[in-house]
């Protein structure tokens, strides 16, 4: 068989999804910025520039498929990773400040964001690390190495004050999960977010009640005593809920220097420590119970540090965005402005939308960053629910196909890289869209393949096409 037939095995479906998204994005960028008499190929305008970037991206994609040897990725993964770390470091020093974050580098008049590209190098490095024979998540040195691989770029990007891009790396935990990390870590992460919100919106007391309830339930379920567990949980939580009342009875209150949440936390942690110590002395081998008790103590600590994290670690604008999102503050003209305008735009789209270039919200730039981070508004407004749904379905098909292809691949490097690609895309898609529809605080990261911006389009193209190229190798081996 000649080489031509190999390319018949190219994953044309993935390529088609990609092309549809990119062209659709371009049309929406055009629609967002067009004025009277504008033409599609006006290079002084964003849509003209984006067209150039599209051509560059597609040319690069072709080069990745047809020219660049696929062996190079695994072989040079660490070198490229190292170079990117140097580049990220350099950005912190010589970067250009754009909108509060120092994450752009200016090279010969063209500005680009190294952070966009470090996703690729991190993915390759992870694939090289975890794809090696003998890598096991159970081994401490292994998972520490894996965490360090994603932790280093995260730290550097955080130092560039580009928190949004940093969050994307959390998606690599999904790859870890696939490669053997316990699912409890993911659940614990989600639970931490929930506790964070509860602690902020209500009070640490409510957060502790929920924590205690969940852990009691979990324990009894694991002991196969679910009915008993429900009863115990309801009784315990109800009793604890009355604790503030009891503590504020005058006679009690007189001798009571702590507030209710401190009492519960102290009592809970003391009990947990007691059982932990008892089990260790009696050499019971109930690992799950130990894990549960330790987690309880850690989470209690976390709940009490929420206020501190919120007030001291987060930056002012991040704090404000979270407050607005959680309904703690109403600020339609300030921080909530973007999201509100975005919701008006998307909401006004209705079922079928207003039609291409008919968006009214777009005309006076009421939605800021309409072509970059808020491109989904234009889609929602002009193409309606049907259009938004189509985009989401397309994204889902793309992700599912990457996962399936990755899973089918015999080469661990390709599989892990595929999962990395899917995780990056997923995080971008979810964070971006959830932001525009008010489910997440405003975090400025682009929507893959749709947003305006040379850096991001180029980076996502490279990310995806390396996978398509690696996937092609599967067939090459079969033929040999």
């Amino acid at each position, binding site marked *: 068989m000649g080489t031509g037939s190999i390319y018949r095995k190219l994953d044309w479906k993935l390529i088609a999804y990609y092309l549809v998204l990119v062209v659709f994005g371009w049309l929406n960028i055009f629609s967002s910025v*067009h004025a009277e008499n504008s033409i599609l190929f006006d290079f002084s305008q964003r849509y003209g520039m984006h067209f150039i970037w599209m051509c560059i991206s597609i040319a690069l994609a072709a080069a990745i498929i047809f020219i660049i040897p696929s062996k190079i990725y695994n072989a040079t993964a660490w070198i490229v990773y190292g170079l990117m770390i140097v580049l990220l470091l350099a950005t912190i020093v010589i970067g250009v400040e754009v909108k509060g974050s120092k994450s752009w580098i200016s090279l010969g008049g063209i500005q680009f964001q190294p952070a966009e590209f470090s996703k690729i190098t991190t993915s390759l490095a992870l694939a090289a690390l975890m794809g090696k024979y003998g890598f096991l998540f159970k081994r401490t040195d292994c998972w520490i190495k894996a965490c360090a691989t994603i932790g280093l770029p995260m730290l550097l990007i955080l130092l560039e004050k580009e928190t949004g891009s940093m969050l994307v790396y959390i998606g690599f935990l999904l790859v870890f999960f*696939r490669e053997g990390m316990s699912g409890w870590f993911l659940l614990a992460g989600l639970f931490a977010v929930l506790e964070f919100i509860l602690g902020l919106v209500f009070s640490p007391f409510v957060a502790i009640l929920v924590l205690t309830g969940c852990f009691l339930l979990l324990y009894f379920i694991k002991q196969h005593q679910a009915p008993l567990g429900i009863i115990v949980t309801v009784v315990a939580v109800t009793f604890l809920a009355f604790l503030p009342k009891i503590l504020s009875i005058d006679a009690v209150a007189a001798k009571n220097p702590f507030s209710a949440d401190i009492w519960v936390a102290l009592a809970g942690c003391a009990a947990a420590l007691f059982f932990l110590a008892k089990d260790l002395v009696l050499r019971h081998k109930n690992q799950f119970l130990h894990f549960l008790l330790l987690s309880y103590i850690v989470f209690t600590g976390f709940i009490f540090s929420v206020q501190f994290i919120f007030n001291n670690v987060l930056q002012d604008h991040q704090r404000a965005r979270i407050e607005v999102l959680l309904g703690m503050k109403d600020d*339609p003209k300030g921080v909530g402005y973007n999201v509100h305008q975005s919701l008006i735009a998307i909401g006004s789209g209705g079922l079928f939308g207003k039609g291409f270039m008919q968006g009214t919200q777009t005309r006076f730039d009421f939605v800021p960053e309409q072509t970059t981070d808020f491109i989904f508004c234009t889609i929602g407004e002009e193409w309606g*629910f049907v259009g938004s749904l189509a985009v989401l379905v397309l994204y889902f098909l793309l992700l599912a196909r990457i996962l399936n292809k990755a899973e089918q691949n015999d080469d661990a490097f390709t599989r892990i890289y595929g999962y990395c690609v899917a995780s990056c895309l*997923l995080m971008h898609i979810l964070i971006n869209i959830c932001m525009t529809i008010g489910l997440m605080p405003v975090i400025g990261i682009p929507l893959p393949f749709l947003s305006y911006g040379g850096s991001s389009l180029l980076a996502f193209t490279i990310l995806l096409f390396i996978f398509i190229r690696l996937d092609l190798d599967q067939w090459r081996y079969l033929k040999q």
Partner: protein
Amino acid sequence: MALSISRKNILLAAIAIAFLAVISRLFYVQIIEDKYRINAENNALKYKINYPARGRILDRNGEIIVDNKIIYDLEVVPIDVQPFDTLAFCEIFDLDPEFVKERFDYYKRYRSRIGFGSVTFLKQVPGEMYDKFAEKSYMFPGFDAVVRTARAYPVNSGGNLLGYISEVDQNFLNTHEGYAMGDFAGKTGMEMAFEDRLKGEKGYEIFLRDAHNRIQEHYEDGIYDKEAVGGSDVMTTIDLHLQAYGQQLMQNKVGSVVAIEPSTGEILAMVSSPGIDVSQLAEINKYYSELINDPYKPMFNRAVQSAQPPGSVFKVVNGLIGLQEGVLTPDTKYPCHAGYSVGRVHLGCHNHVSPIDMYQSLMMSCNAYYCYVLRNILDNSKYASVGDAFDKWREYVTSFGFGTKLGTDIPYELAGNVPTRAYYDKIHGKDRWKSLSIISLSIGQGELGCTPLHLANMCATVANRGYFYTPHYVKYNPGDEVDSTYTTRHYTMVDTTYFPEVVKGMELAVQGGPGATARSVAIPGIVMCGKTGTAQNPHGSDHSVFMCFAPKDNPKIAVVAYVENAGFGATWAAPIASLLVEKYLNGEICSERKYLEQRMFEANLLSRVKTK
């Protein structure tokens, strides 16, 4: 293997759940929730932009230099327009029916793009037209007028000092944040310098439209509306009437006049002639090509952008350097027999008594005297070479502000030129030049390029006896946050003790009697100090230059007049500058000098200026 497959499916399921959550939220926002109702067929939000009034520009006494007047932009929602009486419409707005037809053809062609939107039909409709329209507006459904403000100028004073505003273009938008098409911004002069304070903030109102595209109500009771915030007024240091008087004196002449209050660095007047008339300023688009093609370049702010040789007024600087360097004392006498001759070098001078001391040299503006001074400075044996001495000289000169941008708030200020040692090395060969080679610097000729503002600043420095405040035209009121560069005394490298000596010479030049170059412009009752200059230049007749300050003690005003190709300093620049001084200090011109004022008003020197 069974485990890993299930993990993939767990992930896929989790992704599906997340996507479903997003989709249900979209379903809620786009289809169920009424708050964002407005769908394509019936309702739509209409955003109405409210433009803020631009801040006014005031003079130092609070009088208005630049004001606002209300004009209207006529907007039209093409889809709402019904057949109307085109003739009556054209009559109101003084239009050609053909124009109306063209516009509507255009709207028809782009109807899908315009949709329910409104477009601007006519810009800057004056109030009288709007009144006529308002009476009959029921006849023209779909048309609506939006209030905007345009610039108005109560007094013809300022011209290109004030600068103009114009609609922003794509270039401007690319480099400035917070502007949109249709906005105006200051492009030159004060309008540009104070743009941030003058512009204000745009506001908008959001309305709901019903199925008939009629505006119904404020969306959400207006909580998302934003009020326009008018720009702040800016007080300047300009004296409105002095400025106007300066323009009157300079009419039909090419050049500039700059007046500074020495004790503060505040610019009292800054005339560049010919300038832009304020009537043209208000409608700059209409006159733009005419102005840009005018051979006398009225758009060009000569006061800060025209660097020319300073001529004899520069002798003051050389004198001061000589005193500081110890190569000259006020009593040093030098001979002059109609010039200075050494070998083949000859620099001419006019007839006056000889020998003379430093005071007399300033009084009579002797060229030869300053040839001696400069040579003494440059051939000073305490320096290893002429080059080293020249470096020192250059340092002195730049300490007066020459050859540098002064750091004023005036846009497009030029640095001018003070030649460097490297420059002469290049011309003559390294260290192959002598003090004689550059002797013309002694009388302010040669490669020196100074703007009238530089000269005015130097004059203010002498008036202050040794220091200057950076000239500026923003006026601070008590309590304002003051830019410290404007309140810092900048000392020159010449000790303040030497300044009274040159002041005495400058006093003699005006008040000194026979031989004094500027005695014809002495003002009765005011002790004025001055120095004439006649700057040779490659463009034609000599430029007429004069700098002066008054009163001698506690000077209130320092003026420089620079009249291009006009001849002797004493003939044109001196009368103009002295009249300005008199006007400022006394409020009027005394009767014996009325003829002088008359002559300045009437003189037309434009023909002396080569426009090619």
